[in-house]
Each structure stands twice: as structure tokens, then as C-alpha cells.
């Protein structure tokens, strides 16, 4: 009985101590890219303050940098890590451009990186599906 309890506890701890899986990290990336897109959409409709919008975009950029660099170390072999890195860098570039144009209150120039983020959102969702299916 005691051995069984110890076994269950060991299994639980082994599951619990694991770092976030690549699939979970991909979910985080998709979440932040979508956040950037949604906050940009709200800003274009003049429904969010400039400060909040630019801070959230900067936070999205930071989260992508952090999660992306961790994910690159553990990407499944089926995924081209160089291509993923390029996509992530471009996404981050567009998000930081969005933040810059929010601070400049330049809605017309904001639209271009905001449109690009929509494309990268789909790219990241595709990567997320690939990571999920390669589990």
C-alpha cells in the first residue's frame, strides 16, 4: 500500500516537474500574437488608450522573445527551426513597429504592420498545429 502511494506520488511529481512542453509554448506564442492583433484592432477603433496599447504590444514582444528562444531549443525535428525563427523575428518586428506607431499616434502607418501580424498569426497557428501533431 505504502509502495503504491510512493509510486503515485513519484509519477505525479515527475509530471509536475516537467518544463512547459513545446505545444504549450506554441500556445503562448499564438496567444500573444493574437493579443497584439486584438489590441491593435481596438486601438484603431479608438477604444483603448495609447499607453495601454503600446505597453501591451511591448509586453507581447517581450513574451515572444522569451518564449520563442526557449522553444527554439526544444522544437521537434520535423519543424524547420531556422524558418520558425525567421517568422518569429518578423512577427516581433511588426509588433514593435505597431508599438512605435501607436506612440507616434500614426494610425495610417500602423495598419501595415497590423495587417502583417494577421498573416503571422496564421503562420504561428500552423506551427502550433504542426507541433501538436508531432507529439
Amino acid at each position, binding site marked *: 500500500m505504502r509502495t503504491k502511494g510512493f509510486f503515485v506520488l513519484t509519477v505525479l511529481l515527475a509530471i509536475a516537474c*516537467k518544463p*512547459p512542453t513545446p505545444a504549450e509554448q506554441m500556445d503562448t506564442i499564438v496567444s500573444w500574437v493574437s493579443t497584439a492583433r486584438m489590441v491593435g484592432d481596438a486601438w484603431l477603433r479608438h477604444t483603448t488608450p495609447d499607453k495601454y496599447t503600446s505597453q501591451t504590444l511591448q509586453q507581447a514582444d517581450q513574451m515572444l522573445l522569451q518564449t520563442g528562444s526557449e522553444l527554439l531549443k526544444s522544437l521537434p525535428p520535423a519543424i524547420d527551426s531556422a524558418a520558425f525563427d525567421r517568422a518569429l523575428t518578423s512577427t516581433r518586428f511588426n509588433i514593435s513597429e505597431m508599438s512605435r506607431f501607436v506612440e507616434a499616434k500614426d494610425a495610417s502607418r500602423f495598419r501595415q504592420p497590423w495587417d502583417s501580424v494577421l498573416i503571422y498569426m496564421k503562420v504561428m497557428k500552423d506551427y502550433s498545429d504542426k507541433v501538436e501533431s508531432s507529439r
Partner: protein
Amino acid sequence: MKKILQLALGIITSVGGFLEVGSVTTAAQAGALFGYRLLWSILLGTLCLIFLVEMSGRLAAVSKHTVVDAMRERFGFPFFFIVLVGIVLVAFMVLVAELGGIGFGIQILTGVGFPWWAVPVSLLVWLLMWKGTFSLIENGASLLGLVTLSFLVAALRLHPDWSGVTSAFLPSMPSGDKAKYGFLTVSILGASISPYLMYFYSSGAVEDEWDRTYIPINRFIAGFGMIFGGVLSMAVLVVSALALQPKGIQVDTFPQAALMMTTALPRWGFYLFAFSMIFACFGAALEVSLAIAYFFSQGFGWSWSEDLEPSKNSRFAFIYTVIILLAAIPLVFGIDPIKVTMMSMALTSFTLPLAIVPFLLLMNDPIYLGKYRNGWISNSVVSIVVVISFVLALISIPLEIMGG
């Protein structure tokens, strides 16, 4: 007529005071990750809360004792002290989370980080406690909290799939991420069944000099007030499920949560969310600070009343002053309020037996309640929910802590 007014005010304040940082955060995370699937846990928590609030009001009306008074008298000081340590520690974490929630609400409006707001917000809470009366705190803050009704408006405007909503009232397991699902269930139950509400409510009933004639009013306030409040929590989950989940947005930070109403209420959604957080957390911060001061003062036999001058109530005033001051410190150093919120809600579930088991024993004691003691339905509902919360907390808290 006076009692009808009290009834109406009681229900309104229950609704306005229901949502706080814990219920908003847990429901938003649940909706963003699992859609409607966790609605059942809000229903279960609300059901349990209805019984607990009704019991604490009944205890006060019949025995003229607050829950803490009766607990110390019935079980003795050594046992009471153990309960005090557990409950106060968790309530303190909840207070940190509530102050952080106010700071966050101001942060998204002004762009100035929440650590800068920790001290002014704590001072404001303290000032209201120092100068205010019980009815001002209970009614004023809760009436402002009625802005949280905007979550219900947002949910209705998003036209939820009602068959999906109703089927989510039955528990079901997701295909993946079961640890997170368990942790969120525990956190939602902890956010719904906050023991500090029992202490606050019974102390309020004694402050308002309730007697046996208030038993029907108490039943209505507990029933309708908590049901409407529970509906508000469900509305937060539904809004998050419809606005954030399809986009794959998880609520890891407050700024992400702030976007949830911008789909349903494009013009005002963001500001309504910010003000909902500020007012709901403000009301809850006052209630938690008061509940902690009540807990200490009633437990140690000191004089206590929010309606007395601090000079006539010095130890009571000292406790809330120190607690509010201490709660501001981690926020000044930038502790993540969302993590404190989630952990405090889960720990609330973990400590529920400590608060609820002695309370249930009291509620079945004929010395205190005579013919008004609990029936089997209330005993069963509360016991079952507390056991579920405790077991889930036992499993999912270590998983969440170690899994990050």
C-alpha cells in the same frame, strides 16, 4: 417597509459586491482556456456560498454571535488559534490580490504601473476604514460595484449558444491539460466560497442588530443576492469564452483580460472592464480588511465595531491598519497580482475544511441555534462541496506550483 428596503438593498449589495479579482480572473482564464466547460464549478461554488451565507446570517440572528465569537466559545482558544493562522494567511493573500486588482485597473487607464498605485490605493482603503461606517463600506462600495453588471450585458450581446451553456452545468473532462483544468476548478471554487464573506456577513448582521425576525430576509438576501452574483461570474466566463478563446488568447496577464469586453461593447468595453476591476476590487479590499480585523478582535475578545470611533476601538483599528500596510509591500516590489490571485484562490479551497468543518458543527449545535439548526440538505451540500474542493486542491496545487 424598512425591512423591504433592507431586503432590496441587501440583494443589490450582494450583486454589486460579488465579483472581485479572484472571480474575474479565474472565470476569465477558465473561459479563455476551456470555453464554457467550467461553468459547472461556478454553479457548485455559488450553491455552496448561498448555504454558507444563509447559515452565518442565521447564526447571528438567532444566537447574536458572530461566526468567530461562537467558534472561539465552542471550541476553545487553542483550536481557534489554529483556524486563525490558516484563515488570516489566506485572507491576507486575497487582500494583496484585491489591492493589486485596483492598481491594475488604474494602470490600464493611466499607463502608470500598478506598483506605483499600491501605496495610494492602500491609503485610500485605510482612510475609508478609519473614517467610514459599516453601512458606508457595505453599501457604498457595493453600489459602485454594480458596474460589473456590464459583464452580463456583454455576455448577452455576444449571443452565447444556450444549449452549450446549459450542458456545461454538468461536469466534463477536457481531452488535454487536465492539471490546469483541475487547478482552475479549485481556484473557481475558492473564489466563490470565500470564508471571509461568512465572517464579514455575520459580523455585519450583529452590527445591524439582527434578530429572529430577520431570518426570512436573510434567506432571500443569501439566495437571490448570491444567485445573481453567480450569474455575473458566469457572464465573465462566457464573455471570455466567446471573445478570447476563438482567437487563442490565454489570460496570463491582466492586460489580456482587459480586451475581453471590447468585442461585445466596442465603444465602452475596455473602460467598463477597468472600472469594474477598480470598484469590485475596492469593495472586496474593504471587506477582506474588515473581515481580518473582525477575526482578530472577536477571537481575542477585544471591542470591535466599524461604527465605533477608532479611539474607542483601538486594537480593531490597529489590526486593519497593519494588515493594509503589510499587504501593500509585496505590490510595491512588483509581485504579479494575477499569480497571487490564482494561488490565493486555490489555497482558499485547501483551507476550506479548517473554516467550514467547525462552522458546520456550530450550525448543528442546539445550544446556539435551538430549532433553527441546520437540516440535512444544507449539511450535505456544504460537506460535499468542501470535500471536492479539498481533494482537488490537494492534487492540483502541487501540480501547478511545480509545473510553473
